[in-house]
């Protein structure tokens, strides 16, 4: 039982990370039906920005938690700005193009950003200061859940709740939902669609940055390639939960995290990804729009 719980919490913290990144995929997809392959790279850029801020502030001798907070905020701003710019350069000119064209420019963007960071910084792994302190009261639960795991889980829950609130009740949130449902109609009722799309990219990208900084600080290292696998997994999670649905991203992330964790624990980590993808295939066969996705009838 203890072993089961340990694996359960491992999966929970891993799943929360996937969920945080998956939000960006799911939001963008919901609005413009594009798999934003460069999203993993935005996560990576967030982590790098966090590292630079942390480096500057550690040199000044600030306390760890303050550094963490500022690093997260600055990383969010920069990742948001990157997301905005990426959309303007690579996707906006393709809004009326065939459906696969933006997908290819997204793959190009992903390759470009990886190599840009590699050249601007370094190809090697860089140490990232571990800014999350080990809280005293968590000590006795450490074999289940560390402080940083807890922080990651709590953050993703808070973010998820805030985002849901934002989408449901604010003006921009409503505009987003309207655009997602029918872009042309939204335009007709006076929604500035360009603005909505930009806002979506900015929000999705800054959420990825939160994940980037927290995970980097948890793992103690980053390099230019960390976005690729994280992005691929998060994308899987988004589809699993039902792409376009925000609670779906959370659920998908958790299901994916647990699958990997239990597969590792009870079978073999050699095949954890095989199990993850098999689960995905099975779920999509029985629920072709994901766990919480809307099962839409085909219009005739």
């Amino acid at each position: 039982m203890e072993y089961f719980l340990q694996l359960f919490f491992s999966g929970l913290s891993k799943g929360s990370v996937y969920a945080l990144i998956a939000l960006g995929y799911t939001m963008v997809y919901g609005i413009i039906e594009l798999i934003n392959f460069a999203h993993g790279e935005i996560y990576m850029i967030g982590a790098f920005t966090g590292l630079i801020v942390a480096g500057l502030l550690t040199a000044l001798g600030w306390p760890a938690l303050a550094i963490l907070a500022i690093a997260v905020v600055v990383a969010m701003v920069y990742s948001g700005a990157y997301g905005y710019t990426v959309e303007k350069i690579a996707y906006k000119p393709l809004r009326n193009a065939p459906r696969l064209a933006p997908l290819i420019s997204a793959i190009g963007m992903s390759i470009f950003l990886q190599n840009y960071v590699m050249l601007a910084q370094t190809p090697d792994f860089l140490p990232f200061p571990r800014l999350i302190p080990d809280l005293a009261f968590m000590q006795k639960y450490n074999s289940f859940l560390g402080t940083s795991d807890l922080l990651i889980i709590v953050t993703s829950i808070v973010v998820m709740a805030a985002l849901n609130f934002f989408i449901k009740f604010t003006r921009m949130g409503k505009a987003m939902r309207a655009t997602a449902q029918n872009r042309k109609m939204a335009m007709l009722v006076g929604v500035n669609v360009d603005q909505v799309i930009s806002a979506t990219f900015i929000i999705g990208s800054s959420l990825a940055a939160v994940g980037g900084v927290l995970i980097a600080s948890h793992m103690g290292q980053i390099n230019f390639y960390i976005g690729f696998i994280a992005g691929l997994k998060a994308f899987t999670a988004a589809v699993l939960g039902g792409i376009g649905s925000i609670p779906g991203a959370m659920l998908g992330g958790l299901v994916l995290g647990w699958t990997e964790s239990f597969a590792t624990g009870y079978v073999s980590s050699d095949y954890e990804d095989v199990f993850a993808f098999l689960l995905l295939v099975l779920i999509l066969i029985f629920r072709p729009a994901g766990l919480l996705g809307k099962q839409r009838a085909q219009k005739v």
Partner: protein
Amino acid sequence: MASQQLAKNFKQSVVAALWLSFLTMPLMVIRVDTVEKTITWRWMHLLWMLVGSFVLALVWYFLMDRRDRGGANDGNLNTEAAPSRFSIWLNNPRVARPLMAFGLLFAVAFPFLFSMYQTNILISALIYVVLGLGLNITVGLAGLLDLGYVAFYAVGAYAYALLNYHFHLGFWAVLPLGGILGAFFGILLGFPVLRLRGDYLAIVTLGFGEIVRLVLQNWDAFSFGPSGISNIARPGFFGVTYSVSQATTYIYYIMLAFVLLTIFVTARLKDSRIGRAWLALREDEIACQAMGIDNTKAKLLAFAMGATFAGFMGVVFAAKTTFINPASFTFMESAMILAIVVLGGMGSIPGVILGAFLLMLMPEYMRAFSQYRMLLFGATMIVVMVFRPQGLIKARRKIYKVNTKPAGQA
């Protein structure tokens, strides 16, 4: 008018340069080491960034203007753009035949004109031409987005490598087998995904590709795991053994024949009954079914046909590199093949060929830029897509001219 435009572009470019410099400032300028607590400032980079992005922005806006102005003419949704003068000229048999003859002659003479390196990378490009044309059937014609195409390629490659290792089967014996195995796996993948549409299909095929790779990586007893299989025999020719450069030339001719065959087959397929069914399937599944087309059969056939070519190419690939391991069959490879199809022009055979040449040869010829080549490669993909979203060579649909005199009024 023109000067106004120029002034506007100039202003926009200044803004863009400032914005991009702000954006890239932390990563380009600052380098930190949090262990030694050192910070390196590289302000020179900011200057380059400012100047560089200004120039690029100027070019970008200039091209965007041209694109948008041009777009007003041929961007109309419902008309097939009139064929350009160039393509009419090309379609003229008097021009096309000699050109074709010359091209063929050149291709045949190629290994004798250029070095082994040139031949070698041309083989790679030709392999990708066939892969692109194969995927074009699934994606371009039938509209089924497949992100795990590389799995079939892996199936062919491992089929040859393993059969060669265990039973010393030759290239020619395994070649048809590779195709059959590819088709078999295509159908295997096709069945579970029949109900899925669009991007859900994409992620399941992606998952399938990854599963195949992971199994090859972890199942040591079967596939030798990550250390791969080496010393795979090159193709034989009635017991003649070749040196490396002779073998390269030989494989080149095999590939050349293969490409011609593939072009022929795919061109015929496109205009066949099943090809029409695929096109209908791509445009509207329900309408297609209503027209009496068996959707299931058409989809499975699309997967199987596409996968067959990948299976063939896998065998050639294994024979060419003489060594394979799972590192060659990652998701990025599938993405590259898809990029060939989309960049070249979905559904267009010359487009796919051009796309394969561009994407496979560009990184090779950019070796001179060494570390910058992948950066430029990514940028090229974006630029081509932005300025030619239909692909380099747009697929032209066959237009049937029907006499449209309404029957009732005479």
